[in-house]
């Protein structure tokens, strides 16, 4: 195995490979070390972990990702904690009370788990932020006004937006966690719990026909939000959660024609990721400085 040839090959395919790594010199240094100290048989796995580093972690590092996730979990935990505690919001004596309590408990568990994981990795978990559930970015006078915790339909619509955002946010960060298998697996385990929450909130919305819920299903159909509040600022914000979900092509395969399905089914079959920037744009109005 000629390492120089391998590096040349990679360079031909991806001229920016050394930008993804520290530098060509450092990459070579890693391998000269390996060559001296490890058997030849170990090189493929070392090369694999180097490629994982180059192509798996395009932005940020694991601690940044975990703190980003923690911020979202703080938001969800606070939202459900206040919602479950708000008198007269959730119809008493209905299964909704138990369901929303379950979700609240999961979000609090995620906060605690992420704080522990960040500390264990040598990082500093961010402090609990301040919130603005009027979606006013700290003005406490945003387009949702006081409806979030007084109007059940609005509460469920916000819950759906938060859960679907959470699903898309974790999905978008998975690639940045590949260098740590245990962290990646835990993030995937949170990701699918958020998807279960999202499905149930949607199930609840359909039963309650709340705020434009219509025939909302547990899965996302094209980029339809199924939230029509009549307030443009609210509807536009919620729409950002669903933009991009309408795609029907995956890895160059046209899902609709490949299986003879319509665009609704083809889009529902795959959830789409959001970038950190897209998620930040969605949730920023809910945080206060």
């Amino acid at each position, binding site marked *: 195995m000629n390492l120089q040839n391998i590096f040349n090959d990679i360079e031909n395919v991806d001229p920016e490979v050394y930008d993804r790594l520290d530098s060509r010199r450092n990459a070579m240094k890693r391998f000269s070390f390996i060559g001296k100290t490890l058997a030849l048989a170990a090189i493929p796995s070392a090369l694999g972990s180097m490629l*994982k580093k180059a192509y798996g972690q395009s932005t940020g590092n694991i601690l940044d990702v975990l703190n980003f996730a923690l911020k979202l979990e703080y938001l969800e935990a606070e939202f459900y904690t206040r919602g479950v505690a708000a008198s007269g919001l959730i119809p008493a004596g209905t299964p909704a009370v138990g369901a929303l309590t379950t979700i609240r408990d999961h979000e609090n568990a995620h906060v605690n788990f992420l704080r522990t994981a960040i500390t264990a990795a040598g990082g500093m978990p961010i402090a609990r932020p301040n919130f603005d559930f009027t979606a006013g970015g700290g003005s406490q006078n945003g387009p949702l006004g006081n409806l979030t915790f007084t109007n059940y339909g609005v509460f469920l619509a916000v819950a759906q937006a938060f859960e679907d955002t959470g699903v898309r946010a974790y999905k978008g960060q998975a690639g940045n966690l590949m260098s740590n*298998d245990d962290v990646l697996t835990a993030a995937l385990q*949170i990701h*699918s719990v958020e998807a*279960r*929450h999202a499905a149930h909130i949607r199930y609840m919305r359909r039963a309650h026909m709340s705020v434009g819920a219509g025939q909302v299903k*547990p899965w996302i159909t094209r980029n339809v939000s199924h939230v029509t509040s009549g307030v443009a600022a609210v509807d536009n914000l919620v729409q950002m959660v669903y933009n991009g979900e309408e795609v029907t092509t995956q890895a160059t395969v046209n899902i609709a024609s490949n299986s003879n399905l319509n665009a609704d089914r083809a889009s529902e*079959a795959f959830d789409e990721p959001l970038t950190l920037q897209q998620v930040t744009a969605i949730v920023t109005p809910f945080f206060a400085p």
Partner: protein
Amino acid sequence: MSMDPQSAAKTGQASSSPLESMMHRRKFLLFTGTAAATAALIGVSCKKDDDDNNNTTPAVNLGTGDVGILNYAYALEQLEAAFYIKVMQAPYGGITAAESEYLADIRDHEIAHRDFFKAALGSNAIQNLEVNFDSIDFTSRASVLGTAKAFEDLGVSAYNGAGRLLQSSDFLTLAGKIVSVEARHAALIRDLLQNGSFADLPSLQPLGAVPANGLDAARTPTQVLEIAKNYLRTPLNASNLPS
């Protein structure tokens, strides 16, 4: 059964598949070169069994590396799709309009997943698997939804557990796009059986869930296939998958 051995395995050549073009061709070969080589050996060694008359079906080799993991997912999606197709061909008595709509949607999603993997894997794809649904009473709502719940929770645990085995971040994101839809299915099926059980993590502990941390199921391919094999007549050989 149709025995359509891995044609890529026979030729030993990487195919021009969508997954390949998704990454750069050269990068793809870097990841899958050993998979194709290993599969070639297995393909040759299996050929002599193709036309035998005994009852032992040769095991289908899932392969190695990322291709092996994608074939593993393809196998599970074949199982799910076959199940929901059969469910909707003759729905259980008393099925509601809403249940019928939900189950037809889920069937279509699983078909989309199955066909996607087949197209994406190209000539690296495993053959069509023969399923075994003898244990399922398709006339019974409890049997059908109980099986659906088992399949969906198993699927979630499979994708969650396999993420760490993938080398390509593109494939990881693709798996992520599918697993959350499987989790939505799982939640809905559970709610149909018992409203509010959508994320009953204690019940998912046998599949690796950690309720105290709010973590869903996650199992290794070996653990998943130990359960899935009860519904498959075609044996699978997962021994070459990464671990």
